């Protein structure tokens, strides 16, 4: 503590007598409505700026669209990305197996076709031309 502290700590409270004397500087001393008028004057002068701020704070159609866009665009992007990944994975699983041309020519012909034809031929009565004449 310095040498002033002893003197100063005595005066931590409000000096009411000095306060009373200083009241001569309070404009409300002789006019109780002074501060009400002060406040009204300030609010009157600030009305235009306050109104501008209210307008700025009100959401316009553009703001609404933008706020929607802010939510919708990232969601759509994420969804598209997920769908893309899923499609790529799906198509990778069902990818066509490479088949040769010869294999393709016989791929849907049943193996019994030729024996069946032979059987049918066997069933027919074969008549030679030489026998007719």
């Amino acid at each position: 503590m310095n040498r002033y502290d002893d003197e100063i700590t005595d005066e931590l409270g409000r000096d009411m007598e000095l306060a009373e004397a200083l009241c001569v500087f309070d404009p409300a001393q002789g006019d109780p409505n002074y501060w009400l008028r002060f406040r009204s004057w300030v609010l009157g002068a600030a009305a235009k700026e306050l109104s501008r701020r209210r307008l700025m704070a009100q959401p316009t159609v553009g703001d609404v669209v933008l706020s929607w866009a802010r939510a919708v665009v990232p969601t759509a992007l994420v969804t598209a990305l997920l769908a893309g990944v899923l499609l790529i994975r799906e198509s990778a699983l069902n990818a066509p197996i490479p088949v040769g041309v010869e294999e393709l020519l016989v791929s849907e012909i049943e193996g019994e076709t030729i024996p069946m034809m032979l059987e049918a031929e066997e069933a027919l009565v074969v008549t030679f031309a030489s026998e007719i004449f």
Partner: protein
Amino acid sequence: MLTDGDLVRRARRGDEHAFGALVERYQRPAYAVALSVTGRHEDAEDAAQEAFLVALDRLEECRSPDRFGGWLMTIVRNRSKNLVRREALRETDEVPPGARSRIPTPDRVAETSELRGLLKEALMSLPEMQRQIVLLHDLEGWKHREIADRLDLPCGTVRSHLHFARRVLRTALQQVPGAPDFSMRAVR
């Protein structure tokens, strides 16, 4: 009760009630600070009112809305200094208009006038910081901590300034006939 921060955030959106509450909360300290710089009622009133309008215009620049009071007092001091520079040669009536609306007795007028004259002389002999501190503390009832926070000073410095300012003012008041007896100081 809403904090300064809440009121500032609402005022930024144009809430008239919030801005009105801020004006109501700080109009007296703003006037006291302006008076401590200008020393004249009309200039103090102009500076304090202008400061509120400037504060509203620059509300986005108030980086710590909870410390609005300190920020506003800086604006008040700057506006007051500008006003003093601008109107250095202007002659003004130092009596608040409201004080004239009363019809006081001639004795009362003489007493008040003498007291005001002596106090004003004593006040203006103080450094600006001491004037601000004594007006904020003894006229507006701000606590040391509040003054320290809002004027951005250490609490010990506030107490020290207050001590010296009071000593000067008491000496001046002892010259006023019928003034309170400061030898029996009442500290409440």
